[in-house]
């Protein structure tokens, strides 16, 4: 069928306003219902994951080469540092051994209930949002591997964030630094509770501290048990700056360069809106609000 020239011209003129309108509406709808696009996003990311994995593979190699060069340059200085550190750590090892023995004895005496077994899933980062206003990463494990929404993601040194979306073989981890990340934490020593709020900068802020809490640079921050999402005591970071009400925490994990993550299942269900009750398939917004009302 041939379309007449005037109709075609009119359609062409209207394309831009139409597409701009659609885009703007998508943004507005997304703002009113934050979960609207979850299903679509997860489905698409699952499909595209093999591509992402294939593309990121050579970069792992390239990164390895860069790292090898950097290591070779720094080898002498690092060697000296490591020797010193090794000597120091050997002393700590002695201390840890005696403490572990003492701890075992005390546990025996107090008849302490043994802690739950922790399952962890090792995953590789296959995509990194890398945007100016989003801090999240995609990992190559999902529902099929046992990943669930709300689980903690860690590197060897500390908490990275929590699982926000799960596909069948991918999952998205919202980093501590993301605008939408709010994690209950506490100070390791005083157990004073607070919330660690991401604000898009490299160092998240501590908010909702009780008034007149004494905070000093260098204080260690760990996850707090409140909310039942994470078990208490996972290492998060150290207070890096205090200026008036603005307290910033430097995460232990190097969030800018994440390669391998451990998704940890502590068997806690906790307060997990929307994910606690899996939404029935092919239900619109009505279905979800019915869940929320329950």
């Amino acid at each position, binding site marked *: 069928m041939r379309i007449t020239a005037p109709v075609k011209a009119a359609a062409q003129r209207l394309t831009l306003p139409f597409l701009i309108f*659609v*885009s703007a*509406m*998508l*943004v507005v709808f997304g703002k009113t219902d934050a979960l609207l696009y979850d299903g679509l996003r997860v489905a698409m990311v699952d499909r595209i994951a093999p591509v992402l994995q294939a593309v990121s593979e050579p970069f*792992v190699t390239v990164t390895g080469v860069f790292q090898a060069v950097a290591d070779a340059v720094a080898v002498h200085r690092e060697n000296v540092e490591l020797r010193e550190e090794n000597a120091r750590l050997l002393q700590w090892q002695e201390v840890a051994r005696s403490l572990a023995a003492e701890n075992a004895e005390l546990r025996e005496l107090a008849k302490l209930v043994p802690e739950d077994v922790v399952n962890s899933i090792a995953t590789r980062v296959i995509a990194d949002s890398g945007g100016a206003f989003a801090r999240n990463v995609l990992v190559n494990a999902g529902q099929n591997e046992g990943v669930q929404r709300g689980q903690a993601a860690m590197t060897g040194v500390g908490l990275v964030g929590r699982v926000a979306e799960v596909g069948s073989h991918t999952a998205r981890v919202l980093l501590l630094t993301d605008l939408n990340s709010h994690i209950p934490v506490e100070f390791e020593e005083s157990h004073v509770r607070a919330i660690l709020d991401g604000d898009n900068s490299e160092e998240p802020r501590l908010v909702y501290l009780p008034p007149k809490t004494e905070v000093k640079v260098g204080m260690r921050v760990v996850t707090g048990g409140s909310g039942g999402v994470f078990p208490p005591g996972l290492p998060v970071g150290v207070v890096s700056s205090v200026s008036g009400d603005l307290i910033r925490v430097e995460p232990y994990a190097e*969030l800018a*360069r994440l390669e391998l993550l451990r998704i940890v299942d502590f068997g806690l269900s906790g307060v997990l809106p929307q994910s606690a009750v899996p939404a029935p398939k092919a239900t619109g917004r009505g279905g979800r609000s019915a869940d929320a009302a329950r």
Partner: protein
Amino acid sequence: MPFALSRDVGYSLRFVPFVTTLLFAVFSVVPLNLPGFAVVTPAFALMAVFHWTVYRPDLMPLSAVFVTGLLLDLLNGTPYVGLSALALLGGRTVVMGQRQFFVNRTFPVVWLGFCIVAAATFAFFWIVVSILHGAVLGLRPFVFQAVLTVACYPVGSYILAWAHRILVART
């Protein structure tokens, strides 16, 4: 009329701009993990949309720009789906309006043009995300990503120009 140009290109090659743009979009979420390369990566999709709008707007229609933007938004995992689509559509419209300043100019002039477009795009992101989030966000990551994007444009443009040469050579 630029839309008539597409007749000179073979059917399969018509999709070179769109496909390279999609690839650039995917590439922008690949973790580079290079030492010193911070959290943000350059906005590769913006480079591609700009490049093709300047050199072959007939092969980079609005619908292709829209789809690229949506793909980027879904890949990014931000709650603001549609935002990149809006920004890219805006960018394309501005470039189309000012095309006569870019065509047949030396690379530095085009680069300067890209610099302005990138600055405007990231200013737009900063303002809109601040409004949507209900708080003024720190400018630093936005400025940083804009600078990184502009700095990487020559490389991106080189790759696209190479794809463009194939497109021309085969037709």
